[in-house]
């Protein structure tokens, strides 16, 4: 499903941070085009 897709990551400082999600998505064949880590506090 993710293969060959472009992925934008909206991580959360108190949940799963952007760079952690990016490491995961890079194993799926998708291209990460944007990563951020929001802070909802």
């Amino acid at each position, binding site marked *: *499903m*993710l293969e060959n897709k*472009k992925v934008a*990551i909206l991580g959360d400082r108190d949940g799963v941070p*952007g760079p*952690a999600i990016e490491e995961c998505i890079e194993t799926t064949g998708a291209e990460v085009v944007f990563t951020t880590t929001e802070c*909802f506090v």
Partner: protein
Amino acid sequence: MDLENQQRVKDLAEKHGKDNLVIILGGAEAEASGLACETVTNGDPTFAGPLAGVQLGLACYHILEPEIKDEIDAEVYDEQVSMMEMVLDVDDIIDETKKYREMYSEYTE
């Protein structure tokens, strides 16, 4: 979802095509995750940001959802996410994200 990121998502959808862009969330709470999913599918519900009234209909998932988790290398997922998976309210987060995706996403496979 902060206004700067709304603009980023809007620009990326225009650049790469709405059918080609997938949003992955890492939110700690169900409500915030649902709100982010609503924003990138049906527009900003607070009408404050660049996505107010903009229905992108993007595919949007939380990193904890099985559809995404199953595509990730298990060892990497374990290293990067499994610790948070133990402390977050996974079922609520998934339910809330899925609710908005099913209502408003036009590009979910």
